[in-house]
């Protein structure tokens, strides 16, 4: 049995594995967070609490599927579907291994940026259609945050694109044969990391949700599986950003040959997933205006300078 890019088997495997990993992350995150807070975390259900996810899923599937009477029904139901769809679509262009992937796209980077922008609609529609002041505040914040952070998320990637000369993610990985792009593009990597956290609205940049300030922000009115889709969508976004960082800056599937390429890919992505969880455990949430001014006044100029210097060096050599 051989895997090849775009075969039905590969697509099914990628879809299944990605969703299962995203669901398992619920348990992984709770466990890791508790270790970093000197607790034990969920360890009752099954060995090491592994079946906690199953229990959570049973609970969330059997909950009443409720739409508030004051909500706009169509967009209320549509919103959680959008975030799942666009993030799963983004996985289509990611090369998981030398022969594992869904499509060979020459515009992979652009496709992912476009899908990330569409993801903003999910949050906006969810908050607007809920007809709830906290949800509205959440979606306002989400819209502003997404718009401002997408700008330099794209610009920080352009350094990598310039070095490899391609928008194709597979070509970008192959261009890192000699040296991972994290070394020449370290500033780009840090900016993309920060933008990635903001883009998947995880702590410390979970301003649109911000339980302590505005209930749960845009998904205040959601319950049952519709909330579950937002929830798993967040973890899918986490997996996506981690695998993007791996692909763009850390040489994708490449590594010493004693492990198969897909394992290297999983290991590298896992490190970044753990790092994102560590960010959540350690860093407090900034104020909303701090987040905006930090993005526009510091990260955007920095990413522009980074791109400028990269371009100058490429031209001069």
């Amino acid at each position, binding site marked *: 049995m051989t895997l090849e890019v775009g075969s039905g088997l590969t697509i099914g495997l990628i879809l299944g594995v990605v969703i299962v990993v995203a669901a398992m992350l619920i348990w992984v995150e709770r466990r890791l967070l508790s270790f970093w*807070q000197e607790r034990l975390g969920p360890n009752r259900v099954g060995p090491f609490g592994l079946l906690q996810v199953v229990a959570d899923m049973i609970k969330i599937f059997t909950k009443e599927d409720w739409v508030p009477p004051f909500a706009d029904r169509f967009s209320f139901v549509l919103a959680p579907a959008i975030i799942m769809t666009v993030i799963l679509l983004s996985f289509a262009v990611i090369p998981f291994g030398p022969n594992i992937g869904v499509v060979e796209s020459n515009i992979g980077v652009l496709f992912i940026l476009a899908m990330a922008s569409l993801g903003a609609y999910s949050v906006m529609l969810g908050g607007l259609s809920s007809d709830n002041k906290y949800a509205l505040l959440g979606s306002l914040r989400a819209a502003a945050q997404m718009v401002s952070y997408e700008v330099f998320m794209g610009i920080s990637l352009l350094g990598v694109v310039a070095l490899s000369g391609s928008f194709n993610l597979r070509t970008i990985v192959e261009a890192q044969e000699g040296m991972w792009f994290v070394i020449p593009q370290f500033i780009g990597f840090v900016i993309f990391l920060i933008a990635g956290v903001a883009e998947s609205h995880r702590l410390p940049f979970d301003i649109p949700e911000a339980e302590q300030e505005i209930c749960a922000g845009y998904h205040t009115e959601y319950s049952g599986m519709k909330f579950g889709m937002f929830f798993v969508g967040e973890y899918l976004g986490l997996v996506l950003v981690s695998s993007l960082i791996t692909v763009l800056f850390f040489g994708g599937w490449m590594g010493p040959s004693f492990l198969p390429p897909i394992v290297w890919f999983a290991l590298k992505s896992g490190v970044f997933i753990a790092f994102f969880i560590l960010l959540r455990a350690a860093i407090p949430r900034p104020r909303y205006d701090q987040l905006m001014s930090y993005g526009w006044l510091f990260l955007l100029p920095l990413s522009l300078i980074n791109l400028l210097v990269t371009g100058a060096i490429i031209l001069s050599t």
Partner: protein
Amino acid sequence: MFTLVKDTLISQVVTLWGVFKKLFVKADTVEYPDQQPYMFPRWRGRIILSRDPDGEERCVACNLCAVACPVDCIALQKGEMEDGRWYPEFFRINFSRCIMCGFCEEACPTNAIQLTPDFEMAEYVRQDMVWEKEDLLIDGCGKYHDYNFYRVAGKQIAGKDKGEALNEAKPVDVRSLMP
């Protein structure tokens, strides 16, 4: 510029490293049902009624515990034996109200009511939280092994007249004190 870098980057990295080190610190959690905590002997938990060394009920139904109780969770009714001893006809503690303050134990003149280091008293039915005398009475003496109220008290009962208690002087015949 330096303070900006210090605030935005260095202090965050220091925080991240500090939190990451917690991975190798033993968790503070006590895994309770598997790992029982040490209960101190004076812990104020489930209330019991003790018996004296002869096996009789210590409680004399004086109602002092019910009066001392700040949440009024104790109810009892006095009865009297043929030999003159007092005893509670019923003695009822509503543990859904009880706050385990131990005032009843302090008020008790006969060391009958005592608090024990047992706290696992959860019930599925609320009515089961109400304990009757049969549930409260234990066979032993509790914390005071050789205390017997009727043996030391001046109270007159059948088989023990005035002045026959331990360390009790004979009643004085006031007429013999005449000058």
